[in-house]
């Protein structure tokens, strides 16, 4: 493709591409996000190529590799456009049948369709599947429409028109104003208004200025930024470009975790293609504006997502937070004004410029506008990436989109905001999801991790788990965070092993409060959230552990033992076969009966819980009992 030298060149290219594309034409899209690739979706793509060839359909049917569809758990996902027929869990061997049936005979392959767990009905269309039906996909929707490795796909759907519009029809001030009016808030954590940040950088006296994409997603289990960069890298680049133009920056950085090779690869390709077309580099579209972007691969420590740490890392030093009483917007990278936003925030920008602040403001709540992407994981039936309008209730996310709790168990809590977020209990499931409401509930939006926990989750153990994670992932620079977490972890370990003491809860609270005010960076200031929120909502569980040496959820190994209820045991012996230490032995059910039942030798039991898991549902003979009551029985 030749270099584009003007706005009309871009328009012409878009028309040229679209003239050769027929939206009513069948297009098979094969998800090629990290999740589906792990299930060998590339082989499925290859099989489609062969089958289409075989049926001589190559000229009437399009085939496209796309970014992540979000429903990764049910991958690999194949969606046939324009009808949006959605096949889940597709395998290479299913491909001939799909081509034969759906493409040739216009019939559905029933067994690959979504099955409603309640009614058993099959659902053919993507938008009717509950997981998708309740979402509001403004950003993720484009993932289905583009091959992330092809800039022409992005241009076909109007890509870079926001950049061109800004260059030729708007001045930098009006771009900032649009973002301010939209009230776009940072999607990476604190929810700071992006427009205000841009303004500060723009008005900072020093030059040069920098713009940065923070793609250092460190929350375990969260991958929204990764999916955006992998699936639609140009939208992030265009957003960054708009920011650069607005604040007067000519150099941008994308800080990506080393562990995201596909994101790095697709972003590299995107930058190269944008260069070739003259959408990056010097004199962009003949406007006289220059802008370039470099990828920086980070070593991927949780703490490097903290903005000042990330900047020190780009400078080539050890990525450690530093005091920033002067904002990085004024003194950031190499002490120059720097505007840093996360992937999702930048990805929102082109849509706002294209569709206007009013459109963006029409979605969401009073102070939280637009949509938010969450990574919904844990004990729910449907897991994956979900994009919802701000203000939706947690209940809707967990029960409508997520399809409720696995195995019909009871909901207990949902952890939002990643490791340094907090838990939200059942009683608060109806709060609207927005920045301020989550804060009020003692948690936070964070970057959008959402972990659902069922009744079999111990909240003290949960707090211990996150505290342990943070104790090892903080940088360890300042006393409150390093020593505070060290002591919190010690106390929580004590409580979960039955060594908790009266006063521990109060001491944890005191430490938490101290860390909130005294820690150096945002990581340390929020590191006590898991402890604070679990104490706040589940204090009685802490008390049970400390006073009665009892774990109500039956999780803390030192406080439970497994036993077999003689009356329920059907003598199948499954547990004995699965016990790794051969601690389960056979006994006679009673002095008179010949029936066998099983029992557990407590001396040899390592409390792995295998017996509990394998005991058939019709028996459910393995029970968890508090250690003490067991001791009393013997």
């Amino acid at each position, binding site marked *: 493709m030749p270099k584009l030298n003007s706005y009309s060149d871009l328009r012409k290219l878009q028309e040229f591409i679209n003239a050769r594309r027929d939206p009513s034409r069948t297009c098979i899209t094969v998800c090629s996000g990290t999740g589906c690739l792990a299930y060998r979706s590339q082989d499925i793509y290859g099989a489609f190529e062969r089958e289409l060839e075989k049926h001589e359909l190559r000229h009437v049917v399009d085939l496209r590799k796309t970014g992540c569809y979000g429903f990764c758990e049910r991958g690999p996902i194949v969606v046939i456009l324009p009808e949006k027929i959605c096949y889940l869990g597709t395998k290479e061997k299913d491909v001939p049948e799909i081509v034969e049936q759906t493409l040739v005979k216009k019939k559905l392959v029933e067994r690959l369709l979504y099955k409603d767990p309640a009614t058993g009905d099959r659902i053919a269309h993507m938008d009717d599947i509950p997981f998708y039906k309740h979402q509001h996909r403004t950003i993720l929707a484009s993932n289905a429409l583009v091959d992330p490795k092809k800039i022409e796909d992005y241009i076909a759907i109007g890509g870079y028109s926001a950049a061109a519009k800004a260059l030729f029809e708007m001045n930098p001030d009006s771009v900032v104003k649009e973002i301010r009016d939209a009230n776009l808030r940072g999607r990476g954590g604190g929810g700071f208004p992006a427009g205000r940040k841009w303004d500060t950088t723009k008005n900072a006296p020093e030059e040069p200025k920098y713009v940065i994409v923070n793609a250092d997603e460190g929350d375990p289990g969260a991958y929204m930024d990764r999916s955006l960069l992998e699936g639609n890298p140009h939208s992030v680049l265009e957003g960054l470009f708009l920011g650069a133009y607005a604040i007067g920056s000519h150099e941008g950085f994308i800080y990506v975790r080393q562990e995201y090779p596909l994101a790095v690869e697709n972003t590299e390709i995107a930058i190269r293609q944008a260069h070739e077309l003259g959408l990056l580099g010097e004199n962009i579209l003949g406007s006289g504006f220059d802008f370039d972007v470099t990828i920086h691969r980070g070593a991927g420590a949780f703490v490097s997502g903290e903005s000042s740490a990330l900047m020190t890392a780009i400078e080539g030093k050890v990525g450690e937070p530093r005091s920033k009483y002067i904002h990085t917007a004024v003194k950031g990278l190499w002490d120059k004004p720097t505007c840093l936003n996360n992937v999702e925030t930048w990805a929102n920008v082109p849509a706002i410029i294209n569709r206007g602040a009013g459109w963006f403001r029409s979605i969401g709540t009073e102070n939280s506008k637009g949509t938010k992407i969450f990574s919904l994981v844990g004990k729910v039936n449907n897991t994956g990436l979900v994009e919802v309008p701000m203000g939706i209730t947690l209940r809707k996310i967990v029960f409508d989109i997520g399809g409720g709790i696995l195995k019909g168990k009871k909901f207990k809590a949902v952890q939002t905001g990643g490791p340094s977020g907090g838990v939200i209990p059942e009683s608060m499931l109806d709060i609207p999801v927005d920045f301020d409401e989550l804060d009020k509930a003692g948690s936070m939006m964070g970057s959008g991790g959402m972990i659902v926990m069922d009744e079999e989750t111990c909240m003290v153990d949960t707090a211990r788990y996150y505290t342990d994670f943070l104790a090892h992932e903080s940088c*360890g620079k300042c*006393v409150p965070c390093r020593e505070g977490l060290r002591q919190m972890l010690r106390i929580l370990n004590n409580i979960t092993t039955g060594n908790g003491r009266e006063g521990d809860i109060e001491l944890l609270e005191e*430490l938490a409060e101290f860390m909130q005010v005294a820690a150096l960076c945002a990581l340390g200031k929020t590191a006590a959230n898991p402890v604070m929120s679990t104490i706040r909502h589940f204090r009685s569980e802490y008390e049970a552990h400390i006073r009665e040496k009892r774990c109500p959820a039956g999780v803390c190994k030192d406080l439970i033992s497994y036993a077999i209820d003689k009356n329920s045991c059907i003598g199948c012996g499954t547990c004995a076969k699965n016990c790794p230490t051969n601690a389960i032995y056979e006994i006679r059910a009673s002095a008179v009966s010949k029936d066998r039942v099983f029992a557990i030798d407590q001396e040899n039991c390592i409390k792995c819980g295998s017996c509990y898991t394998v005991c058939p549902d019709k028996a459910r003979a393995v029970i968890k009992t508090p250690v003490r009551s067991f001791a009393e029985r013997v």
Partner: protein
Amino acid sequence: MSTIPLEIDGRQVAAEEGETILEAAQRNGIHIPTLCYNKQLKPYGECRLCMVEVTKGNRTRIVASCAYPAEENIVVKTNTEKIAKIRKMIIELLWPSLSALAKDYGVTESRFHSDHTDCNLCGMCVRYCSEVKKLNAVYFKGRGINREIAVVPDLANECIYCRDCFTLCSGGWIVDKCDNAYTSLSK
């Protein structure tokens, strides 16, 4: 050169351009406890002992005075109840290394199990070596609760054995570290 008027503990003081609150206080004879601050080195912000309350307009924040730049007309309080609470907690967390300060704040014991080493990770040795000596004989290793001070294995090549860091180290830890490294080297 213009000066910056501000109030510290009820006194009007004048800070010089570029000074931090801590520096302005020290020059005016107002004492703020510190551990990781050294005037030869860049502010670091590890110990948080120097935290003070700063009121600017109608907003009050608690900040590390060694890093916070003196600003016009801010009101600084160096020893409020909140601040004392923070310092007491730091004393307990680093117990028993801040024994002198513990007396000032009436702390007689720690509620925590002290399982850290004598090194409080103030980084004085590391920063002095790199910022002043322009060498890197000492460095931080590990992160989070596993962070520690380490000396480069072939210390003899990096370290000029000026021993300056020995005098900066409050816990004497660096002396042990270096001496051990030398002893094992000479073997």
